[in-house]
């Protein structure tokens, strides 16, 4: 395959039009709003995720990418991710998103060895599926970590437009203002190679809300 510049790959992966069922996700915002989070608190919510959940996700993704590149087993990465994601509901959602990503990857990189390896995993979570796609597409670890952070913030922003009455320019302003934090979170995890070093920074409140959300009978988003 001809070399594709990293920025173009990132645009492809970060585009909301990527058919991976992104429209079913709110990055926990719906649950948070149901428990009283207000529009004014959304930027703080984004920051909190960048300091916690996003580091688990991004760390998992870059370690998986390293192990794909070095042909090391992926099971320890999945186990490390699961141990850092105590909510059953969030693990299930991440695995559903992983399947969606793997479905797309199988179509785009049909003969990619990394794509086949992640698809064979039992319950491949989203960050590991993303790592498979990144390995196949030639995306580096830092870019992958940025992608995970950016996607999280943008998911919160677009869900906020559905859940809280808002000028869309304001929501995009939040994303813009969060970019330095996205960059910092990505820098922090980009060099990780060992599953044991994946940050164990789950956010207990988010996890509790996610559990309640999965049992609620009125919701727009799967998580």
């Amino acid at each position, binding site marked *: 395959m001809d070399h594709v510049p990293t920025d173009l790959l990132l645009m492809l992966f970060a585009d909301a039009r990527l058919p991976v069922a992104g429209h*079913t996700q709110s990055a926990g915002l719906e649950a948070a709003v149901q428990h009283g989070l207000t529009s004014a608190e959304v930027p703080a919510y984004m920051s909190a995720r960048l300091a916690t959940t996003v580091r688990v996700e991004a760390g998992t993704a870059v370690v998986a990418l390293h192990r794909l590149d070095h042909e090391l087993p992926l099971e320890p990465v999945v186990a490390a991710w699961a141990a850092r994601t105590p909510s059953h509901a969030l693990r299930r959602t991440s695995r*559903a998103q992983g399947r*969606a990503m793997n479905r797309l990857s199988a179509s785009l990189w049909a003969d990619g060895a990394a794509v086949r390896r992640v698809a064979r995993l039992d319950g491949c979570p989203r960050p590991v599926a993303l790592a498979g796609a990144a390995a196949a597409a030639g995306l580096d670890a830092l870019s992958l970590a940025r992608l995970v952070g950016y996607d999280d913030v943008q998911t919160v922003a677009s869900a906020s437009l559905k859940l809280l009455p808002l000028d869309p320019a304001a929501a995009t302003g939040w994303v813009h203002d969060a970019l330095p934090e996205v960059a910092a979170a990505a820098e922090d995890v980009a060099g990780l190679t060992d599953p044991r070093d994946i940050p164990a920074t789950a956010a207990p409140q988010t996890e509790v809300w996610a559990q309640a959300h999965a049992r609620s009978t009125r*919701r*727009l988003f799967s998580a």
Partner: protein
Amino acid sequence: MPDPSPTRGLRLGVCGPVGTGKSSLIALLCRELAGRMSLAVVTNDIYTDEDARFLRASGVLTPERIRAVETGACPHTAIRDDITANLLTVEELEEEFAPDLVLIESGGDNLTATFSPALVDTQVFVLDIAGGGDVARKGGPGIERADLLVVNKTDLAPHVGVDRDRMVADAEAARDGRSVIALSRTDRASVDALTAWVTAEVARHRAGELVPTDPGPMAAHSHDHPAA
């Protein structure tokens, strides 16, 4: 080219505005067909899992064969452009139960939404006779080109001042000979016509003769353009 020997069952979409009777039609089909074939259902509720719960409560299928997909307030996206969440759920059901027929209910909210042929093999568009006799004539992609149009709740026609035969004739005219069924759950003959149509679609699919077609987004149009 249709797959000459499909290994999976038929995927049938049921769309149409809210309240026209999609969930009821699916429950009816499950009751009528459960003895004859293996079934599964996917619902696309906009805000609740009400449809899935209604169908589970109706007791016609075991609860694990009825799954709800969240659409993130994008019911059209979920059945038309990014169909991933639905496809994964359908594939999951097919893997677990190998059903002969998977019924997919759209989270209907208006007249224009139809299924992508990449998600369903064939689709039914449901109208409510109490929505008024004009609706069929006004048309739209689902009304004009879904594989089957159901004009539902015909038992209500006398109460809402709609001429049932007129509405069906309008629908047939709008549809260029495609199938129309005037349905009421209280009219046995109409229920039989519906199950016969579905059974025939299952058979066509099995025989590899069913080619999924897209009802819209827009009417194919042709008329003479004046010379510039």
